[in-house]
């Protein structure tokens, strides 16, 4: 099993890409239930609204860690990783090792399964036993026990320390903490850096700490709204800053922003990387800091403006979002160069040649 930064990242990213639909589906169901039925719906035990709430709640409270664990071990050791991944993921949830536990367990499973694949040689007639009996049983048993005993305990302690630290922050450090989380989330528009923050904030959310998710949520909507603000400013002050291609993409930013799809900003960032990224980071940092000071909490993983009523201090969130979007948009507007007519038509690369940097090509024959 080859492990380096690239492969580890790929495995964890696979985990996240499998996790996202689970988080979104169950998060939205839970939010919808709370939205219609009010917070009291949690205590109910019947009715269609409660069912909607419960569908989401079951997904969020039991499935997230097993799914990310199974998906990472699937990435490492293919199909045989799924069964132990799901079961050991449940163990992680049981011992409150959370996400981090799930990720560590997945690598453990990957190691054990790959070792078994390579080193256990059965006679030809019994080969079928490997994938249906031996690998799933022993890998689950070994890794499950390891998580319960030696590996799980330090992770649980670390998670507890982390949640304790977050609960006891002072106001000043709250702002800094929120700003850091906001800027990480606003850095690459749904790319790996943003997804790392997504992982962390969702982990905190399942522990009942809603601040990090607020910063992450806000950053996801700041950049698309920021583009809209910049577009309005460019109209108002007659400073052309977007190419014709980009103007097409601006139209998508409103619905995308409302739905918290930060990827809609990628086309702009690709054309003008540092100005767009810097604006997004600064806007999201301020907004994230404000969210934490104002005690905004986001108990759902996704859903854009539609789920704002389920937040703790929803008005605080809206105010922070407005401020962050204005900052982001104003910065884009000010930083971006006035475009010539040729550039508007043919793109910003019309004059300034792009860097000739090419990634290294490795061919496996």
């Amino acid at each position, binding site marked *: 099993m080859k492990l380096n930064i*690239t492969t580890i*990242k*790929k*495995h964890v*990213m*696979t985990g*996240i*890409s499998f996790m*996202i*639909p689970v988080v979104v589906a169950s998060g939205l169901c839970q939010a919808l239930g709370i939205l219609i039925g009010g917070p009291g719906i949690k205590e109910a035990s019947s009715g269609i609204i409660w069912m909607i709430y419960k569908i989401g709640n079951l997904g969020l409270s039991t499935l997230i860690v097993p799914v990310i664990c199974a998906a990472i071990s*699937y*990435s490492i050791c293919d199909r045989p990783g799924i069964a132990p991944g799901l079961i050991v993921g449940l163990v992680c949830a049981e011992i409150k090792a959370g996400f981090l536990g799930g990720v560590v367990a997945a690598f453990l499973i990957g190691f054990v399964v790959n070792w078994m694949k390579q080193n256990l040689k059965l006679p030809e007639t019994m080969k079928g036993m490997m994938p249906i009996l031996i690998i799933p049983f022993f890998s689950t048993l070994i890794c499950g026990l390891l998580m319960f005993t030696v590996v799980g305990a330090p992770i649980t302690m670390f998670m507890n320390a982390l949640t304790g630290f977050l609960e006891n922050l002072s106001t000043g450090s709250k702002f800094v903490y929120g700003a850091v989380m906001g800027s990480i989330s606003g850095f690459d528009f*749904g*790319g*790996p850096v943003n*997804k790392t923050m997504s992982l962390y904030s969702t982990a905190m959310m399942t522990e009942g700490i809603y601040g990090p998710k607020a910063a992450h949520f806000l950053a996801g909507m700041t950049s698309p709204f920021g583009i809209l603000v910049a577009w309005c400013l460019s109209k108002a002050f007659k400073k052309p800053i977007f190419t014709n291609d980009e103007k097409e993409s601006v139209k998508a930013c409103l619905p995308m922003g409302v739905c918290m*799809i930060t*990827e809609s900003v*990628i*086309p702009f960032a*690709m054309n003008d990387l540092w100005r767009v990224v810097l604006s997004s980071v600064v806007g999201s940092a301020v907004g994230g800091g404000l969210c934490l000071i104002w005690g905004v909490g986001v108990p759902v993983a996704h859903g854009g403006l539609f789920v704002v009523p389920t937040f703790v201090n929803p008005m605080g969130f809206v105010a922070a979002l407005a401020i962050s979007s204005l900052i982001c948009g104003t910065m884009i507007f000010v930083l971006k160069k006035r475009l010539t007519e040729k550039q508007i038509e043919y793109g910003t690369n019309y004059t300034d040649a*792009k*860097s*000739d*940097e*090419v*990634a290294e*090509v*490795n*061919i*496996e*024959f």
Partner: protein
Amino acid sequence: MKIVGITACPTGIAHTYITKKKILEAAKACGYECRIETQGSIGAEDALTPEEIKAADVVLLAVDVKISGEERFKGKPIVKARTEDVMRNTDKFLQQIELKLRKAGKL
């Protein structure tokens, strides 16, 4: 040069398709034949056929996550890269591939 390839990114809604578009544009500009399969969060789209894979000179995997069906490319020259590497300067990236294939006598 005939290229087949797969694109896939973690979220599976944006980079996957942007990368595909970039590769197809660059291939057209450079005069290569190219077919790209996307493995976004919706699953595989524009799936490559066995004939297309057989006819290809090189397989370009622009992927950030684990993809399915990698065993289809057994025995083919494979280029693995991250989507961001392929997106950045796609035409030069493809030309590099051609250059290296020629050097290795595979073209």
